[in-house]
């Protein structure tokens, strides 16, 4: 074997391995640099004009869901979010909220009427600043913030029962122990 033969062979092999890897990966998933960091603070109004401050929720596990009416997957995950609200909404150490992402409030109100409303507060993000602060690149995205105010997980795409079991539950449990 001459050197060029070896190099050519290895090059082709490397290329194919790389492609195989590329197929396996989920191109939508971008690891968030925010996981493990303190959640960016925000203060904003709800649809009904109340003010919500993230800082006021210290000591609680907070679930923040970014969504929009133009997003198909949000429609898919809506029942799951409702279920989470129903199952955990009563706990004093848990809070969840939706943040409307690049959308109009009127549309969102209609949407919520259609889908049977939401049991958790819906917040506004008028200039998209909260979304940018959280590094949101598409909806739905869901963040889990622990009692210390640290982002523990970012879910890109719809929340699932696995998300509840593998992400939310453990954070809630550990919060309870502390």
């Amino acid at each position, binding site marked *: 074997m001459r050197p060029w033969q070896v190099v050519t062979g290895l090059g082709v092999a490397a290329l194919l391995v790389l492609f195989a890897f590329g197929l396996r990966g989920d191109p939508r998933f*971008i*690891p*968030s*640099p*925010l996981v493990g960091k303190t959640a960016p603070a925000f203060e904003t109004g709800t649809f009904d004009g109340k003010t919500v401050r993230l800082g006021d929720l210290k000591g609680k596990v907070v679930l923040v869901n970014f969504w929009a009416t133009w997003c198909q997957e949000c429609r898919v995950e809506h029942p799951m979010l409702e279920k989470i609200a129903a199952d955990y909404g009563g706990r004093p150490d848990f809070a969840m909220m939706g943040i409307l992402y*690049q959308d109009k409030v009127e549309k969102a109100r209609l949407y919520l009427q259609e889908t049977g409303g939401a049991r958790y507060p819906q917040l506004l993000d008028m*200039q*998209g*600043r909260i*979304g*940018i*602060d*959280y*590094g949101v*690149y*598409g909806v739905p995205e869901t963040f889990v913030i622990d009692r210390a105010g640290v982002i523990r997980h970012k879910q890109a795409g719809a929340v699932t029962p696995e998300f509840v079991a593998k992400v939310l539950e453990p954070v809630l449990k550990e919060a309870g122990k502390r």
Partner: protein
Amino acid sequence: MSRTSLIVIAILLGGSLAFAATVDEDPTEAKVREIAKELRCAVCQNESVYDSRSDLAVQMKELIRDKLKAGESPESIRKYFVSRYGDYILLEPRRQGLNWLIWAGPGAAFLAGSGVLVVYLRRRVRRDRPAAGAPVDAKLKKRLEQEMEKLPDEDVP
């Protein structure tokens, strides 16, 4: 955008004719451009924040503008975006770690290619130097070369 909203824009814009003026670019705009051209619009296919018209990109540009006006340096604004979106948002990979592969890669490839080529050529040339036993009349050689030079540089078959 529906037809009605088009009309509304037209009326709105037309109605404000009375306040016509000479306008110029906001002085921070050049800096906004400089920063936004190097950030990737996260929701687009390979477009910069500056070039994209998506809502997210528009909001990001507003944010950059506000931050500049608040006195933040371009470097700290870049850092802010990286802290939120990761290195993914930089259209130009930072010169660090594994990224050196692509920064040094082209230069290295060129040098390696040239090196291999030069070594190859030298070897080929040396091997075929006329053997010492076949001396060429220096005069004849010179004459030949001169004649060759006179020929137009043409690919005469």
